[in-house]
Every structure is written in structure tokens, then in C-alpha cells.
């Protein structure tokens, strides 16, 4: 589904990704773990299409389409969804207005009919109930005054509505208490399907107890340095990233 080959990326002359290779198959949940500054968030932004990054080499293919040639909105229409580490507050944009605009924009881009308002509201309510999002939260401006946990739930709500093919969760566990972590994880697990792949970026093994990955990749200095099954996450939790730092130094 997603294929990244020899990706080299820099920002303001600083090399962040150094020939990264990664494949995520349809239906797979892949976790990326790595120390601070290893390039995890950069990878997620580059897949989603943030402008600040300069791609020097390599390619990112989603179902064979070259994402690097597409604008962020086209990538979204192609199925990419990035759940932000820090979802942005947009004062003055009502959450419902935002949800409807994004949903219809993607439907339009895919040549589908726009949703009617009752149909739209039905879908939002169903997703909101599952994520334990109170209705009055949806009446407020997008993410404004939301707690950390509420913001993350709002991200998963968008994911549930947009039904993307390839979901990136960028440190979705940061800032979540135990209950919120459970709710968010359940929301993600409900979306797991043979047609959908996930890239779960995290520092900690904790999230992976809830969202159990098929594969775990260790990222260090802009590269995937080790790949294994879910037991690799436990190993990292026990030993830390020191081994990889040393191997880099050597």
C-alpha cells in the first residue's frame, strides 16, 4: 500500500531523513518507535505534504501513486490521513462546519455526491457517540478550548468520518490520560480493516498495548534501523534506545 524508497529530506539545510525505506501493506498496522529527534514527525509531515520540508531524493508511493507530486489536499483525497500530534485550534470555525467542508471536499475530489445535511449529521453523531464526544463539543469552534484528550478524540472522529485508506497517528498517545487513551485506541481499532493500513508513531510501548501492531520499526537518525514483530516494542521498553545510539556512534 505505502512504499517509501530511499527518502532523503532536509529542513533549512539540516538533514532529517537519510535514505529511509519503509513498506506498509494493506491491512497492516505498523508502529514506528524511536528516540526524540530521530525524524518520526518529519516522516509523517512529509507523507502528508507539509511545505517546509525539502525532499532531496527518494519517493513515496501510495497504491502506486507518487505522493510527492501531489498537494496535501490531493493526498488526502487519495487516502492519506495524518492525526496530528498537536491538533490546531481554529477560532471562528465551528467544528461541524469544518467536518462538513472536509468531508464534502474529499467526496468531490473522488467524484462522489456531496452528503445531505441529515446524512452528514447522522454520520457525525454515530462516530461521536463511539468516541464519547459530547454534542456540545461539536458546537464549539474547532479544538478551541478543548483539552488534550478532546483534541485527540476529535482527530479520530475526523478519521472515522473521512474513512482514509492510510492513517498516520503521530504520537496520538501524548497528553492522554488512561481513559482517553482507551477511548482513542478503541476508536482506532474499530477502523482496522483489511483495506486500511496504519502507521503508528510513538515513543512509548504503552499505546501499543491498546493498538497492537503487526510490525514494529525502530527509527534512528532518519532511517529505519530495525524491524520486527510486536515483541520488539517490549524489548525497546526494557532496554531503551541506547543500543541504536551506540551502533550509530560506532
Amino acid at each position, binding site marked *: 500500500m505505502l512504499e517509501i524508497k530511499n527518502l532523503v529530506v532536509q529542513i533549512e539545510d539540516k538533514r532529517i531523513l537519510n535514505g529511509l525505506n519503509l513498506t506498509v501493506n494493506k491491512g497492516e498496522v505498523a508502529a514506528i518507535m524511536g528516540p526524540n529527534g530521530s525524524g518520526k514527525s518529519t516522516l509523517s509531515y512529509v507523507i*502528508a*505534504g*507539509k*511545505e*517546509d520540508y525539502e525532499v532531496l531524493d527518494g519517493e513515496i508511493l501510495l497504491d502506486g501513486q507518487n505522493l510527492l507530486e501531489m*498537494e*496535501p*489536499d490531493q*493526498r*488526502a*483525497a487519495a487516502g*492519506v*490521513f*495524518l492525526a*496530528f500530534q498537536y*491538533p*490546531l485550534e*481554529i*477560532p*471562528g*470555525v465551528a467544528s461541524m*462546519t*469544518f467536518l462538513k*467542508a*472536509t*468531508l464534502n*471536499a*474529499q467526496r468531490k*475530489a473522488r467524484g462522489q455526491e456531496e452528503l445531505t445535511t441529515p446524512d452528514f449529521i447522522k454520520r457525525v453523531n454515530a462516530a461521536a457517540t463511539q468516541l464519547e464526544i459530547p454534542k456540545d463539543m461539536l458546537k464549539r*469552534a474547532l479544538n478551541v478550548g478543548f483539552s488534550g484528550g478532546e483534541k485527540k478524540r476529535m482527530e479520530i472522529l*475526523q478519521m472515522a468520518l*473521512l474513512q482514509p485508506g492510510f492513517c498516520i497517528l503521530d504520537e496520538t498517545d501524548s497528553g492522554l490520560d488512561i481513559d482517553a487513551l482507551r477511548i482513542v485506541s478503541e476508536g482506532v481499532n474499530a477502523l482496522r480493516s483489511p483495506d486500511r493500513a496504519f502507521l503508528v508513531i510513538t515513543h512509548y510501548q504503552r499505546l501499543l498495548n491498546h493498538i497492537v501492531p503487526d510490525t514494529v520499526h525502530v527509527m534512528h537518525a532518519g532511517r529505519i534501523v530495525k524491524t520486527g514483530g510486536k515483541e520488539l516494542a517490549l524489548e525497546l521498553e526494557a532496554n531503551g534506545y541506547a543500543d541504536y545510539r551506540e551502533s550509530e556512534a560506532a
Partner: protein
Amino acid sequence: MADVTLMKTPAETALVQAFESARTTLPGNGESRAQAFEQFNSRGLPHRRVEEFKYTDLRALMREVAPFAGVPSFDEAKAALANAKALAGVEALQVPFVNGHFVRDAVDFHALPENIEIVPLAEALANGHEWLSRLSPVQWANDNPVYQLNTSFMADGVMIRVAGPVETPIHLRFVTAASSAVATATRVLVVVEAGASVTLLETHESTDGANHQPNDVVEMIAADRTNVQHVRVNAEGDKALALSTLVARIGGEAVFNSINVTAGSATSRHQVFALLDGENTNLRVNGATMLKGSQHGDSTLIVEHGAPHCESRELFKTVIDNEATGVFQGKIIVPHHAQKTDGRMMSAALLLEEGGSMNNKPELEIFADDVQCAHGATCGQLDEDLLFYLMARGLPKKEAESLLVQAFLGEALEFVENETVRESLVGTVEGWLKARS
């Protein structure tokens, strides 16, 4: 020092001539007109070395003076009003003015809503109506050359008395329909009696392609415990030089909200002179301005806290596209006796392209020692991170920009209580954005 002879510009000379010929035909005894014109004429059109007009140089902007418009026939007036669209969908008591003249045949004086009285101004001036003494309720306006010109030339308007709560909004519709450039000077006085409440809508529209010069004044005297919701829309034609003034004297324990939404005119200047004249009053003055091309839009206000324990909030949002120019000049005055004043003024501008410019001049003049006052001014671009967030959710760039501009202006609009009106204003913003993309 040698005597200095002031050189008059052609426009200033034309104004003198216009006043000389008009003073005998305009209604009323002419004393206050003559006085106002003399004050105006002693200084002439304000220019960039006059502090209050530094960013809106009327001497340079008003090269010619358009002839004052005559009274339209009722058929002409009806046709003009049929074409006027601003806030047209809002159910309201319509008080229309076409080419600066009150269309009295469009108002059924026998079926006015309860608590409303309307007196045509031309008639009132001609027969010396007792309410005339209540005109010009705030001194700051009298010293202002734009206001002085309106006083000099005011040909018509209305005086409205609101004696109690009024549910139906009053809609003042100013429409200029002439195909060639005309000038208008309309004056409206609204007296809101103690305990009364009213929503006052004001829309200004004119034909595109003509250098119209409207100079309209709406003044309000809101007594104690009143609630006034005022919404003004500038949808003037694309060549208009639109000058306007809101004058408000507000009593104690009152609530007064005013917003001006500007999308029209080649050049516009909206002035607000508000005096808080009683304790525990709450004032909000907002602005939402959308400028593109080479448009110039000026919002200037003076809020005087003339009594203690009042709160005022001013929020002005300006969106500037292309090479347009925005101006904000706001001053909060707190005299020594106005203790416990709480005033906050903010002007924020969003520049969508490189060529635009914004001039922000917030001022505080505080003589009391126990007050809370703050002001702020910002100029910036659309936030790249927010744009990326929206695009990453599938919105094309233009749509993402539009949503953010709407959100930016929306902050100034959200205080409009009447839902139909607020939605109509949002529609104005959407229309402006659509025309952009």
C-alpha cells in the same frame, strides 16, 4: 511673519460654491448649517498633515465634488429599492432613502410598529421640530470636518423615536441609484427612550461605475437601561467615496452593540464617536472590513468613557487582498472621574498578498487612576500551519484560505444577535471570498 493665504483646492472652491447655492434651498433656518460650514471652510478638506486624516487624505482623494442629488420620483425610488439587496431578506421596518432623500411614500405611517415614531427630517427642519435640538449629541463629532460637511449639506433623513421595546428591526436603507456621480448628505437621529430596546440596521448601496460621494450620519441617543443592536453594511458601488459617521450618546446601565461591515466603495471612511454618559454601561464597537484591488478602507473611532464603571470592547478585523489599504484609528478616552473603566481595543489585519498595507493607530488617553484599559494591533498573513492542517483534511488551498478568512472575520460578527442578520453578513463574507477565487 508674513500673512499666509490659504490656497483652496478646486474641490474646496466647489464646496464653497455648492454651499452658497444650496443654503437658500435646503430646508431649515440655516444657522447651524452656516456655522458648520464656516468651521469646515476655515480648515478646508483635511489632509495628511491633519493627524486624524493622516492615512486618509481627503484633500487628495476628493479632487472633484459631485453635484448633490435631487429628489427622485416615487417610481424611480421604487425601482432603485427593488435592486437593493443588502440585508434584503431580513424582516424589518423599512425606512428607505434614495439618492439621499427619504422615500416617505414607502413607509406606512399609520401602521408603524408599536413604540415607534418617525419624523421626516426635511419637514422637521422646515418647521423647526422640537426634536431638532437633540441633533449632534456628541461634541467630538462637531469638531470633525466630515461631520461638519454633513451638517452643512444635510438635505433629508428621518428622526425616529423608540419609546419602548421594539421586536422588529428598523432597517435604514440608503440607496444611490443615479448613473452619474452624485453627492448625498443624509442625517438620521434615533432617540431610544429609557428602558427601550431596538435593532437598527443600516445598509448603504450605490451603482457601480460612478464616483458617488455619500456622506451619511446616523446619530443615536440611547437613554438609561436601553439595549441597542446596530448593524451597518457598506455595499457601496466600486467607485464610491463613502464617508459615514455614527454618533452615539449612551446612558447608564445600557447595552450598545455596533458593527460596521465594509465590502464596498473605492474609498470609505467610517467614523464612530461614542460617549458613555451613564454608569455600568456596556459598549461594543466592531468592524469587519474586506478590501481588494486598490480599495481604501478607514475605520476611525473615539470612545469616551464619560462615566465610571463602564465597559467597552472594540474589535476591528480587516482583510486586505491585492494592493488595498486599510486604516484603523481608535481612541479610548478616560477622563479623571471615570474610575473603574474597563476598556479593550483590538485591531487585527490579515494581508493576503504582498502589495497590501495596513495602518493601525490605537490610542488610549487615560486620566483616571483606577482603570483597566488595553489595546492591541496586529498585521499578519494566514497561518501556514493552519492552512496545512485544513489541506491535510482535503480542503483545496483556496477553500482552506476562505475558511480561515471567514473565521478571522467571524470573530467580529459573532456578536450580532439577530440570527438572520448574522447569516446574511456571513453570506456577504462568503460572496466576497467567492469573487476572490
